[in-house]
């Protein structure tokens, strides 16, 4: 479903990787590993369609990436995409509307509860701790069963063990249901997956 051929990436005149191929089918977990600055985030951003690769191309369902891809893919980067002046609930609702996800108020509440955010749901995001902010960003995972491809950049950073477990459970359920997951992580983690792939980037 997701295919990339002969990808190359250049940052600031440095070639980070080249001739990278990958192919992902339903139920596959792809882990991208490598030291700092090896291009893990760049690879994820290329797959999300944000960064233009120096060479090569990414295809989804056999077609070049287009706006339709935005409905079938979920990307969570380093920044939590949580606006300081909106409450936690408003932030989630905006994401839901932006990505045209099917959900309801009850399920939104449940998603926040799952990540232990029910008490701060009405609090402006500026008062959240770093970890809470990450949780607020990840809460949408609980509503994204129907999104086939998840791209998660360091999803476990700044999370406590409880939240790590929540994310791992959601990811495992997603994979078991035939979804796809690409993630980068420094930490070790355990996510049950029907198929696992690994890309090692060298520094």
């Amino acid at each position, binding site marked *: 479903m997701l295919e990339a051929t002969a990808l190359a990436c*250049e*940052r*600031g*005149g440095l070639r980070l990787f080249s001739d990278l191929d990958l192919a992902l089918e339903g139920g596959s977990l792809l882990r991208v590993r490598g030291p700092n600055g090896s291009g893990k985030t760049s690879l994820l951003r290329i797959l999300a369609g944000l960064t233009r690769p120096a060479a090569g191309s990414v295809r989804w369902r056999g077609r070049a990436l287009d706006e339709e891809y935005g409905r079938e893919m979920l990307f969570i980067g380093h920044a939590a995409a949580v606006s300081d002046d909106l409450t936690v609930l408003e932030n989630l609702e905006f994401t839901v509307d932006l990505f045209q996800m099917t959900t309801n108020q009850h399920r939104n509440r449940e998603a926040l509860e799952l990540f232990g955010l029910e008490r701060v749901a009405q609090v402006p995001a500026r008062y959240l701790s770093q970890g809470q902010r990450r949780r607020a960003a990840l809460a949408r995972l609980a509503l994204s069963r129907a999104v086939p491809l998840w791209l998660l950049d360091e999803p476990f950073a700044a999370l406590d063990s409880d939240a790590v477990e929540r994310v791992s459970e959601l990811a495992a359920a997603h994979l078991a249901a035939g979804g796809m997951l690409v993630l980068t992580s420094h930490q070790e983690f355990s996510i049950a997956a029907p198929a696992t792939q690994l890309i090692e980037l060298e520094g």
Partner: protein
Amino acid sequence: MAIDWFRFGSPQAFFPVAGKMVPWFAFLAVAFALPGLYLGFFVAPTDATQGESYRIIFIHVPAAWMSMFLYLVMAGWAGLGLVLNTRLSGMMASAIAPTGAMFTFVALWSGALWGKPTWGTWWVWDARLTSELILLFLYLGFIALKAAFADPQRADRAGAILALLGAVNVPIIYFSVQWWNTLHQGASVSLTRAPSMAATMLAAMLLMALAAWMYSIAVALARVRSIILERERDMAWVRMSAGT
């Protein structure tokens, strides 16, 4: 016969070609400028109304032509780089900008020098001079934007978008300034509306315009060579040719 133009789109291939061309264009610039200046300043007849001071048009007009034309050339290169994603295009745009700004400045400066004896003041809000002033601002904006990014690729692409935006706007700005000028009844004597041109004057003007062309090409090529070296200093071919 098909020439592979894209081969010259790579900085590595272009570097030696540019190096060979620089002296030729520099030579041509001098070869056109010397007779042009001689004709303009010694042979062309003295003007009945403006006296000798009109002779500055042999500097002013070619500089003004060049300043406008170079902005379009720069935007053209920038657009090419944006569409084809060639590295050299952005470097060419960067190399042309200072020369364009220089000619704009020369056009303004020579305009002021001409204005003093003619209008009795260094600056008049004449349509041509005002447009040149705004063009100078556009060049400075482009150079400043490019300088504000550490990543040259980012700088090239942002600069390209700005140059294209500017190129679309330049005719509108010119028109608006012209319009503004007629509404407010500007100077009645215009620098460019020179009296009927004698053949020697026309020849001098054309020679000087050609000299400005050749000079621009020579300088842009020389500058693009140093930009190539600076940007690609870590590439193997630069190290090899530098002997390190």
